[in-house]
């Protein structure tokens, strides 16, 4: 085990705000993950017609005025909802908060495609005359938009920015917040990830052109990681923002502590635009484990990245077997099988869905797994039904993205 750290150098999660296609807060999300309830539905989108998607059903007017909704972006709205919910969940008094010492760090897969598509569609009605192009375009598409909208809504004057990291974005937002707390740049971090991807036809069309857009007569069965009959990604929107604090601050105010973030790693494949590398995923998981100073045998739950693509899933399985093969103790699950791929939100949202395991000792399953692909053999994959286990001390969360970005986060049951 690593040497014990001072409480000022330990970062804990004290609040969770989220919206997923099957839940608008952690309790609801968790309940549906344990009940096997998917959130995938049929959805109509410009040029594509009917597709399958994960749409969030939170009430944006809970924290925003109608004018703010008109002016801002869907990602901004998701981020505001999640940030406000996280602060409420952490029982932080917004007025008492030192807003200059609060930072907003959000992972994104992409931003601006939705707004650009909308504007081009709009000027098409005017024969592409750019004098009809909106003056709202630039503030909507700047890459910091979702995090910036949070600061406008909450009056936060500390730093805010997004971290573009493809589908590893959620984990990387979390890691950035942790690092800024350790550097004493802020006292409170609103960290996680968001995605508005379902409002962009281009993202659906892009996956379709790659031959990697999931289809199924029953929308709820479309996302099938590790199943022999999987046929691609289900595009979803979503968001998850954590309140992160130094343990010393959290203890001082008597905060509820969900878990401690003890390890993380980020690396790059440097091999391909799309296809992942098992070798670098192995390296990433090992880097994170080494940072904590634990062995693979100490991990109790592994939340896999598996998106349901033919090519990607076996690579992650191979990487997990290589790291955990000699330690067949950890149970594995997959959250995308319920909610699809929430892109920039995925890492954070999927971690959130597993945090209650520290309390209830239940591993939520991977659903839609009828025929395990022989290319994806994994020990202790929790299939279709939740599994009660005896020990949950460490959870490892994988999130990988295009251009070969890998991220791993390890959280630990909180103990003083």
């Amino acid at each position: 085990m690593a040497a014990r750290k001072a409480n000022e150098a330990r970062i804990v999660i004290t609040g969770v705000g989220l919206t997923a296609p099957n839940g608008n807060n952690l309790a609801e999300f968790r309940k549906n993950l344990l009940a096997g309830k998917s959130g995938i539905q049929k959805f109509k989108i410009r040029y594509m017609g009917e597709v399958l998607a994960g749409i969030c059903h939170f009430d944006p007017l809970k924290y925003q005025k109608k004018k703010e909704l008109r002016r801002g972006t869907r990602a901004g709205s998701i981020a505001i909802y999640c940030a406000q919910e996280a602060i409420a969940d952490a029982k932080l008094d917004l007025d008492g908060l030192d807003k200059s010492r609060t930072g907003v760090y959000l992972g994104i897969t992409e931003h601006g495609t939705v707004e650009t598509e909308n504007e081009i569609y709009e000027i098409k009605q005017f024969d592409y005359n750019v004098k009809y192009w909106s003056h709202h375009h630039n503030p909507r598409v700047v890459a910091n938009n979702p995090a910036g909208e949070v600061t406008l809504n909450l009056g936060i004057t500390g730093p805010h920015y997004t971290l573009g990291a493809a589908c590893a974005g959620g984990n990387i937002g979390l890691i950035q917040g942790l690092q800024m707390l350790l550097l004493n740049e802020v006292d409170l971090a609103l960290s996680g990830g968001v995605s508005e991807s379902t409002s962009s036809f281009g993202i659906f069309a892009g996956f379709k052109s790659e031959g990697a857009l999931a289809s199924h007569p029953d929308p709820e069965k479309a996302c099938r990681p590790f199943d022999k009959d999987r046929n691609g990604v289900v595009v979803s929107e979503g968001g998850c923002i954590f309140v992160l604090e130094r343990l010393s601050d959290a203890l001082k105010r008597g905060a509820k502590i969900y878990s401690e973030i003890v390890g993380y790693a980020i690396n790059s494949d440097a091999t391909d635009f799309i296809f992942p590398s098992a070798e670098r995923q192995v390296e990433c998981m090992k880097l994170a484990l080494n940072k904590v100073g634990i062995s693979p045998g100490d991990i109790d739950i592994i939340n896999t990245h598996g998106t349901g693509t033919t090519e990607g899933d076996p690579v992650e399985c191979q990487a997990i077997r290589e790291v955990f093969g000699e330690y067949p103790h950890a149970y594995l699950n997959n959250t995308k099988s319920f909610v699809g791929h929430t892109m920039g939100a995925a890492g954070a949202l999927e971690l959130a869905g597993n945090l209650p395991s520290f309390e209830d000792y239940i591993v939520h399953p991977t659903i839609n797994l009828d025929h395990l692909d022989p290319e994806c053999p994994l020990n202790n994959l929790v299939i279709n039904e939740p599994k009660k286990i005896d020990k949950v001390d460490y959870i490892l969360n994988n999130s990988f993205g295009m251009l070969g970005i890998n991220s791993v986060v390890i959280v630990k049951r909180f103990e003083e």
Partner: protein
Amino acid sequence: MTKEQIKDTILKIIAQIIPDEDLSNLKDDIPIREQVELDSMDFLDIIMELRKRYGIEVPEDDYIQLATLDSSVAYLEPRMREL
């Protein structure tokens, strides 16, 4: 359009741009921005809506003409009379 219809049109555009505001007591002769929360980006939305819906171009130098409801109707009437 009659002057009354023009005023109605302007109010409808404003209602769409600032949907949270109550416009029922808007005074005709007091600058709109003194009565409701309407910033410069919202104002540009009014200009854009006039362009998109009615093909009316309001040059920047004339923006001042759209300060009150009365002055807006007076400015737009010759441009919208035939609509």
